[in-house]
């Protein structure tokens, strides 16, 4: 009878997950150079520690006290003395090195699980980096995005973004979103921060949002914005202070919304307030997951009514996913164009995708 051996952790992986370190450098070139150096250091450090770990006498706790040759070398270069070893992950360090990303002049270092991260932040400070926050903040960085909407489908694009922020309320929805986006190689994931960290402001053609995003998705966001022909894109890592100021701004905008027609969506959780019952629905474009009759039946099941045409009193216009202009796949139909025109004049027709419609639940 073979001996079976099972291993598991009855504690969860430590809740110290998601370490990020954000440092600004003099210019993008310096940040990129530091990234390159860190990548090289992490790989060498991992290799050396994994080699030591092969030795049966190398105890678990030794990890915390071991300063690898690679760590000593980079420390010496920047006149930095390590007081604690640098480790990450579970079993092996190699092939699980911390990720590094450069956004403008800012360098982001990220791993879900690290020890000695504080030491790394001190090293970066010695190497000329200015720590944007405390140095080893928890969670993914808050990404600041500022852009002007694309010339042709700006409104639809903005609503697509709002959809994302507003409707993070079910795993199914996220899977659908990611599947759709992944088809074009732009996975965003679900973010990695609290929904309370999200701010979103739409003023005319100008959009600003902050979103807590896993660093490995930042480049996908950049590509997504580019594909959608967003103009004048500014992407940087925001501080918590930025977010706090944005919240204040959003509140002001929301107050002024009725006068200026500006719209502000302050939180992703705000969608909880949207009650699909009692609304009028109209469908346009080709539905991918249901027939028109099924869609209308669903609208009624939600407690809504089905409208006959686009009017200023229409509540929701649902755009079919098949060849949807919301995804940049097809041209806008007459209903969508009319709804946008009415919204521009002050109506509040909510344009949502078929997927978003399927995600609506009766309160």
């Amino acid at each position, binding site marked *: *009878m073979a001996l*079976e051996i099972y291993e*598991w952790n009855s504690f969860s992986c430590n809740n110290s997950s998601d370490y990020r370190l954000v440092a600004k450098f003099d210019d993008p070139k310096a940040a990129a150079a530091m990234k390159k150096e860190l990548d090289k250091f992490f790989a060498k450090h991992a290799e050396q520690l994994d080699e030591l770990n092969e030795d049966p006498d190398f105890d*678990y706790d030794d990890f*915390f006290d071991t300063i690898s040759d690679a760590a000593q070398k980079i420390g010496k270069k920047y006149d930095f003395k390590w007081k604690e070893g640098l480790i990450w992950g579970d079993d092996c360090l190699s092939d699980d090195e911390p990720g590094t990303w450069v956004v403008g002049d800012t360098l982001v270092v990220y791993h879900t699980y690290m020890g000695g991260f504080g030491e790394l932040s001190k090293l970066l400070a010695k190497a000329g980096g200015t720590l944007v926050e405390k140095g080893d903040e928890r969670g993914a960085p808050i990404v600041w995005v500022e852009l002007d909407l694309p010339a042709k489908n700006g409104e639809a694009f903005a609503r697509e973004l709002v959809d994302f922020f507003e409707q993070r309320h079910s795993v199914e929805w996220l899977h659908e979103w990611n599947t759709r986006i992944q088809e074009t190689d732009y996975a965003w994931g679900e973010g990695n921060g609290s929904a309370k960290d999200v701010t979103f402001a739409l003023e005319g053609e100008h959009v600003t949002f902050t979103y807590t995003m896993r660093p490995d998705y930042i480049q996908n966001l950049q590509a997504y914005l580019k594909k959608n022909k967003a103009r004048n894109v500014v992407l940087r890592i925001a501080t918590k202070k930025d977010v706090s100021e944005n919240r204040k701004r959003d509140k002001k905008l929301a107050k002024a919304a009725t006068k200026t027609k500006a719209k502000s969506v302050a939180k992703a959780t705000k969608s909880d307030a949207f009650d699909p019952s009692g609304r009028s629905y109209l469908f346009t474009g080709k539905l991918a997951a249901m027939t028109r009759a099924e869609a209308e039946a669903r609208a009624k099941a939600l407690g809504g009514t089905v409208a006959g045409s686009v009017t200023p009193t229409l509540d929701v216009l649902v755009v079919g996913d098949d060849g949807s202009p919301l995804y940049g796949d097809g041209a806008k139909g007459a209903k969508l164009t009319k709804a946008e025109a009415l919204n521009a004049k002050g109506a509040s027709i909510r344009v949502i995708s078929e997927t978003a419609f399927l995600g609506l639940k009766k309160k």
Partner: protein
Amino acid sequence: MGRGPDAAMRWLPLDGALLGFDRRTGRNVLMRGGETAHLVQAAPRVVQMALTNACNKTCGFCYRPLEARSGWTFDEVLAFGHFLSAWGVLELALGGGEPTVFPRFAELVRRLHDETALAINFTTNGTRLTDALLDELAGRVGQIQVSVYDDEDLDGTIRRLVSHRARFGLNYLVTPRRLRTLDADLLRWSAMGVRDVLLLSYKGDEALHLSADELRDLDARIVRLHEHFAGRLQLKLDVCWSTRLPSAPQLFFDADCRAGSLFLSVTSDRKVLSCSFAKDGIPFERFEELPAIYAALKPGKQVAPLPGCARLPAFGGALVPSAARPRQHPELRIVE
């Protein structure tokens, strides 16, 4: 990962198997085969201990007998910890009532950790988890379990725990109403840094039990949630679900909850029960009486007289064929 004063893994013989446990990391190693077939479990893996019935909340669903007096002093709990450690118990899970209202709670946890080989865990309503308390407990607690109450500032508690880098999990009682917000709650908590959520089944007479349809819904949801959160948030099921969630991936599957065998419950008025929901506890005066009480309770499979107990026919255990189905976690490593 995590530092601790001792590096040794402690070993506990189970019936036909050997279990190792490292309290610093929560790592478990279970060996089972010809070499371990002769082993017999003589001590529970975990002792759940109600330090006190006192609580700063009054929840309608709480099952604790509020009339029971607290029979423990600081020194007695400490001495009890020493006894359990010597007996071979691996973990002591403190509860209540609200354990943090027990006098000198932080000092108690600290001394239990420093003076015994036990992992010290506790379950709390979170209202008293101040920065100062978390500082005092740092490095001394296996895991803090925070019960989810709708009327408390859970977000604030989570943020505090995360900022202290405490190892913690949430206890989430799944009711029909909560089933509707389960996905949203988990997504939000995961984003906030929660890595461990224990889904509790309801035990009691009230209409908080899930219907058959709702159970099927939960079962299917767990499969999707497990896949979605893989590696980021661990979902756990309490043993009372038994066979009621047949599709949910489980590390090990045992139709019986193993109350009174794998774990034992000690009340605040010094009685021993198979589990904290059972009635008719066995009183004890001296700690040395516990091994004999354990030996008596272990084969008895005491039933908690509450709808929801896995050993009641309508709630799982008794309906299961004797050949338990193995349902292993997809990430489980099996070494032969």
